[in-house]
């Protein structure tokens, strides 16, 4: 197997599909901290077997999703470190009634741009909450300790901000793309 060229055609495919694939992996019940690890594993398998990919059989993203499903299914069957990558409870919840919906992760290339636009319209204190939660990677309890608030109150506040963002994105992208 030769070097993965950062400017080569496969890297371009990674750049194009990584966001949607990572979101898809998360929707399969993979723990947030392991999403990138699993997604990279999927891309590496795809890179090794790239000669097996037949564009006439379907899109590249659909092929990646198939590999991701197998990787996550293998993790769920295993014990030990790899099993910890998947939240089994959540995976069962999501692969129950919502399993078929995992395929419906929006494939908009401008998803992140739309989100950034929505973030700009948030009040300053809401943006501050988002920064603490995602840039600083603090959970609700640690945010509460920092802000002098109860963890439940922080969770409610974060929920409200995400609801605003969800509605903003639905408006900009169209409800059918986001619902």
């Amino acid at each position: 197997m030769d070097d993965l060229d950062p400017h080569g055609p496969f890297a371009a495919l990674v750049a194009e599909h990584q966001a949607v694939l990572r979101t898809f992996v998360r929707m399969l019940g993979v723990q947030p901290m392991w999403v990138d690890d699993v997604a990279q594993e999927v891309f590496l398998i795809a890179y090794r077997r790239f000669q097996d990919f037949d564009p006439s059989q379907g899109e590249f993203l659909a092929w990646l999703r198939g590999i991701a499903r197998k990787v996550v299914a293998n993790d769920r069957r295993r014990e030990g470190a790899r099993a910890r990558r998947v939240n089994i409870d959540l995976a069962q919840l999501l692969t129950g009634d919502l399993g078929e919906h995992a395929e419906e992760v929006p494939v908009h290339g401008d998803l992140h741009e739309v989100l950034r636009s929505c973030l700009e319209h948030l009040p300053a204190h809401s943006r501050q909450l988002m920064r603490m939660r995602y840039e600083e990677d603090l959970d609700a309890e640690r945010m509460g300790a920092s802000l002098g608030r109860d963890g439940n109150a922080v969770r409610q506040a974060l929920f409200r901000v995400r609801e605003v963002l969800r509605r903003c994105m639905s408006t900009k992208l169209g409800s059918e793309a986001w619902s």
Partner: protein
Amino acid sequence: MNPQSAQEELEPDAQALLGRIIDGPPGPALHEQIQSARRLSPAERQRLRQHLLLDEILSQSLAPERSADAFLAGLIQRHRCEQDGEAFTNRVMERIEARGTARLRKTGWFLLEIAGLSAAALLLLGTFLAMGELVSMPHLHSSPRVSHVPRPIDLNATLAATTRELE
């Protein structure tokens, strides 16, 4: 976009579950909460899915370590590590095999040396014993010490001689 009205659309239990799953921290109570979530309505499940999705996109957009560039760089680094790992494994296996062959050769030579030395030692010992036997036999017969060994006294002859002298 009124946050309060959006919050009212979801039951408090479902909202608490969403908050616990997405914003943590995960605790022992989360398992029971998710188990009970199986009774969520389809609309509530749909909301859970949307919030998970939004959480993932927010994380990818805002967390520097989760940017697209960081992801690609991590992927390339991981690929290199795997390649290096394979090359390292191959090198080690080659060395182990080479050492194994050399050791086998060394062991063979060592065994031959032992066999040769043993044979030579046996030969020398045999020769020495044979020589000793040949040398020692005539020496034993002509030994002066043997002639000096006192012979047993013949009591009958001594008694007869003494009797004769007295007569």
